[in-house]
């Protein structure tokens, strides 16, 4: 039974409610909103004050209140924009790694639901695409709150399988999503590396604002295996029987090099990139990510 609450625990929902998503780039929209737009002016509507907590941006402190009442409060605004956010969720076989219920795909679904909630809460539209070597499910953009259920159902109905082919998938998306918007890619990026990076560049060149949540399992980052193990490829027929301890160092080196290449490529293409571990709390990952974006765009 699809249940949005399964992916949005109450405490997570509450914390996510404090986050604000600010688009870094001006996107094309047919609704005027609070976001800066190259086409329309922006409007900001004050919503409420809240207690300052360490970590809040000092620029948002209401100094008048501090002068009158000698307490620090934050001014909170409800931003409105005609943001079109597309969640690109990797549903390839490599995302199935992990214990039951704690796979990378599970984590990606949770992360997608969180982002959907945030986007819908600020009255923007959100859509979703689940893909592997092709698009397996597509949910169109909507801005109604009930749309969250549709997205969750689409995520729920997919199970990870087949190889990753970001190049082909992104080519398809670019051709079918001509308007610029926010593309949020949630993937482990494991596949043909060149094709993956080329696909990201393609999205960026199409004018999309691209966010990448690079989801990797803890095991993939730590490689904690000791006993003789036969590793069987999830997206290929390759397998390897080995003493994992003997290969750990080389594996981590290779992985590190890969991550460096991804970071350099995304930075060069002004793509927001965040590496998240499957053991990280999704809201914390989102908050860290959005803080980083906010800081980045304010400059």
């Amino acid at each position, binding site marked *: 039974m699809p249940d949005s609450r399964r992916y949005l625990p109450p405490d997570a929902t509450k914390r996510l409610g404090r986050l604000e998503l600010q688009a870094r780039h001006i996107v094309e929209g047919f609704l005027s909103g609070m976001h800066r737009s190259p086409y329309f002016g922006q409007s900001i509507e004050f919503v409420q004050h809240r207690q300052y907590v360490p970590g809040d941006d000092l620029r948002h402190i209401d100094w008048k209140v501090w002068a009158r009442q000698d307490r620090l409060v934050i001014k909170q605004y409800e931003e409105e924009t005609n943001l079109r956010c597309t969640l690109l969720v990797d549903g390839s076989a490599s995302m199935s790694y992990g214990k039951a219920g704690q796979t990378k795909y599970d984590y990606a679904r949770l992360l997608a639901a969180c982002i959907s909630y945030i986007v819908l809460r600020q009255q923007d539209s959100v859509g979703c695409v689940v893909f592997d070597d092709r698009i397996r499910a597509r949910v169109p953009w909507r801005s109604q709150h009930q749309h969250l259920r549709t997205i969750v159902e689409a995520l729920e109905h997919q199970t990870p399988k087949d190889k990753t082919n970001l190049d082909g998938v992104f080519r398809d998306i670019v051709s079918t999503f001509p308007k610029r918007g926010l593309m949020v890619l949630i993937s482990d990026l494991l596949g043909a590396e060149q094709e993956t990076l080329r696909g990201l560049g393609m999205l960026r060149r199409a004018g999309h604002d691209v966010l990448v949540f690079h989801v990797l399992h803890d095991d993939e980052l730590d490689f904690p295996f000791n006993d003789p193990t036969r590793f069987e490829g999830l997206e290929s027929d390759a397998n390897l029987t080995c003493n994992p301890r003997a290969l750990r160092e080389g594996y981590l080196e290779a*992985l590190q090099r890969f991550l460096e290449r991804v970071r350099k490529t995304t930075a060069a293409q002004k793509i927001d990139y965040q590496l998240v571990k499957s053991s990280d709390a999704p809201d914390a990952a989102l908050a860290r990510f959005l803080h980083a974006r906010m800081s980045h765009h304010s400059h």
Partner: protein
Amino acid sequence: MQFLFQPLVFGFLLVLVPLLVHLINLIRHRKQPWAAMDFLLESYKKHRRWVLLKQWLLLLCRMLAMAALVAMLAGWISSNRWLPSWLGQQVVHHYVLLDDSYSMTDGLEGETAYGSALEAIDAIVRQAALDNAEHRLTLLRWSRSSLASQNENGSASMAADFLATSIPKENEKFLDKIKSTRPTGLELSPESALSLVLPVIEGFRGEQANLYIMSDFRRNQWDRPETLRAALQPLTAAGAEIQLIDCVRHEHENLSVAALEPEQEVWVAGVPLFIDVQVRNHGQQAARNVLIKPRTIEYASGQVKPVIDQPFSGVITELAPVIIDQIPPGEVVSRRFQVLFESPGEHIIEVRLPDDSVATDNVRACTLPLTTGQKVLLVDGDLTRSNAFYMEAALNPGAIARTGLQIDIHSESFLRDESDEVLSQYSAIYVLDLPRLEEPTIGKLERFAQSGGGICFFVGDNADKNFYNERLFNAGKGLFPAELGDAAPLPEAAAEEDLSDMLALPHPVFGPLLSSAGSPFRLLRVQRYVEAKLPDSASTATPTPMTPDAAPDKTRSNTGEKKSVAAVQTVAKLRNGKPFILDKPFGEGRVMSVMTSLLPNWTSWAQDPTFVVFALRSVGYLGSFRRAQVGVPSGTPWSEEMSLQRFLPELEFLIPAGNSGTRLPLKSVAKPQPKKDEADSELKGDATLSVFEPELSEDLVHQLLTPGVIEAWRTDITGNREVHNRAFYALPAEGNLQKPTPSELIANLRPVSVKHRYAENLANSMLTAGLVNRDTLLMAILIGLLLLEQALAYWASFHPPVRKGGLV
């Protein structure tokens, strides 16, 4: 490869365990679906060779460690010679000088000193076989060394049972050869072996030389250590470590037959003869009621055939035992018993003592060659032949008693006319108051005496003083023992004097008379005598016919060469101290002179019973020097000489074969001797029985070194078999079992550095030492392999890694 615990050898299958574990791990690995295969494969491709190399090295190391563990538990011993050199170990050379004299048979309840020595050698050999280093053995028995030393070219190679022989890992046959050796019947000392082993040690410098002297270390050999020190010092200088392996802890009581010899009387068939036997008590306590069991073995000429499956071919007759009440410690007690053989032949007398710790010296035999008669020549210069009358009356009383003597009475012309060959038939010649002798006669008498004959002069009224002094005495070089003086009356004895006119000194000719309490010569009277002026070297020391603890006749060597002898000896003196009977060695024979005539106006001795004793015993004494020895020490070579005109050259020796009763036959052929001169018409040959004969088996050599009687059977040209016996005995001195304490032994040999150990201690320490050495080596290898395995395992990342974070 050899192992102490053979069943554990199957443990080497455990070497396969690491391999099996490795294979099982390859099969039983967990399956892990994995997304980031590209990075894993990249790592694998990059490190594949090193990873495989580390794995195989680790696997090999584990297998070797397992093999080392199993080898240690199974008691691995290496037969490979590369191992010592690899380990830098030295070749160890064991020099064993084994005392195989008969005192090494000392022991009770079957455990002998020689057995202890063999066990010690066994321990050395077995331990050497277990050790990784190369070990060599040189084994010299004292007996073989002593015999080899008698040879001009004697060397260790002649004497050694093993000479620098590598000790094999499979050493059972090796040890069997050593254990087949037995102690001999010889009296031995270590000097010969020490002198023979020195060149060997010097020839193998660079090796670790362990010299083991295995003996019972009796006082006889080790209380006079000067020569031993001189022999040992070069050995230590050559780098040998000397260990005295004492095979006996305690002294035991021991009796030995010190001598066995027929008395020097007339040896004729049908005439009773006394046999003297001496028993020495070598112990610390008096021996009481010692029972001597004599027996005779009669070899009647022409009536005995060789019997190989019996200890003797002759007829054995047990005689009544002789009992000695008590023999004080260290003392010799003599007894005599009478034997009578009716037939001529080479008979044997054997005596046996009760069993004690050393059996070899409890039995002794002697031969007794008897003839049908013994010829005696009386030469009387007087026409009435008065002296000859008295002499003949004493020597051949007629039907009263059979003396076995054949008396020939002739004048001096007989001596002049007859050849040496005719004279040699006589065992003794009595020259009775001849005034003078012609030159040819003197020459014949001298040759007669030099060849072992006995001459006895009586001088009276007729003897020409000047002639005797010039031609017969000849300033001490001639036959006559003393320079003659004038005839003189013996002064009357003083009333208070209770002395006999004649005082006999200990001498064989008076043997039985001296044992009586009072003087047997009380009744005889000496009216006149001829004064004799003795040479300066004369003495009153008296030769004893039997010399206990030694060869019976030390004045003659086995080759007949004359040794230095005592000078003229006084056999009897007159009341006034003037010499009355003199005895002088001359060549191989003896010359006696009685300084009186037998006529009544000179002395009444001829009518005295003691004269009969003197006459008979003098014949035996004077005739004894041409007799063959009645016994020789064990190991003495035997050259059997015989006429090849009377006998066929083939002869057969029958040699005792231990306690089995049967004997070992040995065929031999007499080799013709070169003629000494053209006049010698008889062709002679000799057959030698010696331990150096190359074709002799070890058994025969051993028996030739063991006491017993060997029969030599020869066949005359008519086909009759004739036996010649020879008795070999053990020298009794070896039976003295007293020994110094270890501290005395070591102190005696200083400054030579020696270690004293008892044989059983040596065996135990050798085993313990070996185990330590072997285990240490294996343990070191095992520890090294385990350390290497840990290092390789760490290198190959098989140990749980120190937990460190991943990339994020």
